[in-house]
């Protein structure tokens, strides 16, 4: 069994390494994509200030409702989230009208500018109201409380920092689906599987060897691509590399299992190819590879949960950008694990050598 496994593992891995075209494509494609993102989206040039509004909006300065400001609402108990976004330069200001507080990021030019505008507005409002209060004895308006200023610091998260988990995961998706699904369908079509069926090798040994070979290849590619691009781009990494590695391995295993479902029965490469494309495109769009789904309608976000890529990318971003530990990404890990088991069971149930 072990001897059979090692022999198949070796043959499949050699096939990959010697197939120069596929080999370089697997390495170059993600590198080019990551580099392209870094260049294309290197300079954020958003014209509006993004302000996080924490808790009820009553008493919000009028300035923040002007077109120059874009509001992002946060419930009162998610103040920490808003501040984290502020630290990462994803928000330019955070305000809590109910507490009469605001925060700015002292390391962000845009935040400093936004604060100056807000401070002017608050000063002006305070002046107006005190004038009113002193001039009219019947006024019931209490003197306005002064707004307290809070400052945070933090380096910006560039688009490329945000995009790199998505791009690398997308590459993993292609490599797993096509490297397992498509290749096995080709083996079935041209008779390689039939030849193996005529030997004492069991389907399980064969498939596990294929899957493990692909896992090693994809993981190796990911490490090389990540390390290679990180050398030039210095990605934000607030979490543990070990956690990231574990999440990545689980993600690859899950995607390979999905590839095995496609590999189980089809004889036609065209059909398998078409169906895999049909699945990968929505998955890439709705898993948040290129853009965040945070603003998407809730049903879309819920539907996207069905894709393994959604969980993989979410967990990776949590670790890299927010410094999450395994415990914090446990729901994503659980989802990936359950999906893996389901995919493997379906693949085993459907599998036919011919």
């Amino acid at each position, binding site marked *: 069994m072990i001897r059979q496994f*090692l022999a198949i593992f070796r*043959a499949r891995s050699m*096939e990959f390494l*010697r*197939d120069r075209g596929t080999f370089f494509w697997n390495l170059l494609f993600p590198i080019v994509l990551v580099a392209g993102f870094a260049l294309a989206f290197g300079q954020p040039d958003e014209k509006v200030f993004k302000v996080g509004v924490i808790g009820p909006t009553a008493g919000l300065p009028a300035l923040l409702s002007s077109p120059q400001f874009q509001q992002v609402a946060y419930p009162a108990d998610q103040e920490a989230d808003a501040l984290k976004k502020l630290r990462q330069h994803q928000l330019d200001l955070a305000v809590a009208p109910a507490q009469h507080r605001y925060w700015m990021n002292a390391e962000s030019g845009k935040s400093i500018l936004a604060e100056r505008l807000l401070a002017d507005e608050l000063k002006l409002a305070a002046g107006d109201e005190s004038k009113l209060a002193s001039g009219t004895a019947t006024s019931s308006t209490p003197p306005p409380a002064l707004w307290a200023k809070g400052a945070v610091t933090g380096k910006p998260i560039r688009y490329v920092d945000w995009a790199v988990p998505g791009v690398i995961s997308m590459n993993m998706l292609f490599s797993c689906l096509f490297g397992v699904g498509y290749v096995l369908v080709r083996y079935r079509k041209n*008779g390689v599987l*039939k*030849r193996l069926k*005529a*030997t004492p090798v069991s389907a399980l040994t064969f498939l596990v060897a294929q899957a493990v070979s692909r896992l090693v290849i994809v993981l190796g590619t990911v490490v090389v691509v990540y390390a290679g691009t990180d050398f030039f781009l210095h990605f934000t990494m607030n979490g543990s590399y070990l956690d990231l590695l574990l999440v990545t391995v689980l993600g690859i295993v899950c995607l390979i299992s999905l590839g095995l479902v496609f590999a189980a029965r089809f004889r036609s490469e065209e059909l398998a190819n078409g169906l895999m494309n049909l699945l990968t495109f929505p998955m890439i769009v709705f898993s948040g590879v290129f853009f965040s789904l945070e603003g998407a309608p809730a049903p879309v976000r819920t539907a996207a949960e069905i894709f393994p890529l959604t969980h993989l990318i979410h967990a990776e971003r949590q670790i890299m950008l927010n410094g999450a530990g395994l415990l914090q990404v446990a729901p994503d890990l659980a989802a990936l694990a359950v999906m893996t088991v389901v995919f493997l069971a379906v693949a085993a149930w459907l599998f036919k050598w011919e």
Partner: protein
Amino acid sequence: MDILRVENLSKVYGSLTAVDHLSFGIPQGICFGLLGPNGAGKTTTIEMMEGILSPSSGQVLFRDQPIGAKFREKVGIQFQSTALPEFITVKETIELFSAFYPNPRPLAEVIELCSLSDILNRDNQKLSGGQRQRMLLALAVIPRPELVFLDEPTTGLDPQARRHFWDLVNRIKAEGTTILLTTHYMDEAELLCDEIAIMDHGVILERDTPAQLLRRHFAGALVTIPEEAVANPSDLQKLTCCHDLEIRAGHVEIETSDLDGTIRSLLEAKIDLTRLSVHKPDLEDLFLKLTGKFLRS
């Protein structure tokens, strides 16, 4: 004793009966040829015997037992068409398959047996037709099989490569391995097989040693004259010598046990014998006689 036996074996695809209640056995140690034109049901039969295809009804017995898990370790199979894993060499492919079997033949022995030393480090995808068949034969002999299945192993090879391949098959035969061969080449069957079965439309028409079959069906020699040399072919029927006469593809064929008498009669009938030919009937003729079809269609 039969090493492999099929009983009432049938395979039905929708309305097509590819194999129709076949029953026969293959004695141990012989080379058994399954002959038939394209579409006769040879490959379907052999794949059911290999355990690759499951029969619609009937059974296959290996040493009187239904074929089971151990069967695959004891037989070697060469399919009609097989792709090989890509980007690995002949040597690596043999090593790969050697790992599948509990007691494989050593690499050097496989190389020697199948004459692979010249192509050992060549990529699988870069083999010629003949080299490829040698390589596939090597995969079949790796397990030290008791029984080897060869499904049309020389189809599409040039005459030299075919001859080379026959030498290899004879070497394997000399080791005492039982061989089941399908072919539509009569010369191949005559040269390699101890027994043959002629198959068409999913049934076996005849089965015996090649010599016995020919003796049973042909009296002696076959005399062939171009049709245009005979003014009125029906006249020939009147000749006492030529009762067994057929006109086929522009030739008059006369089967005779008395060659002298036949030629004398033809001369007497003033028939131009310039392009007359005489030959010993072979399996090709037998096949034509049994099925009315040419084998190499």
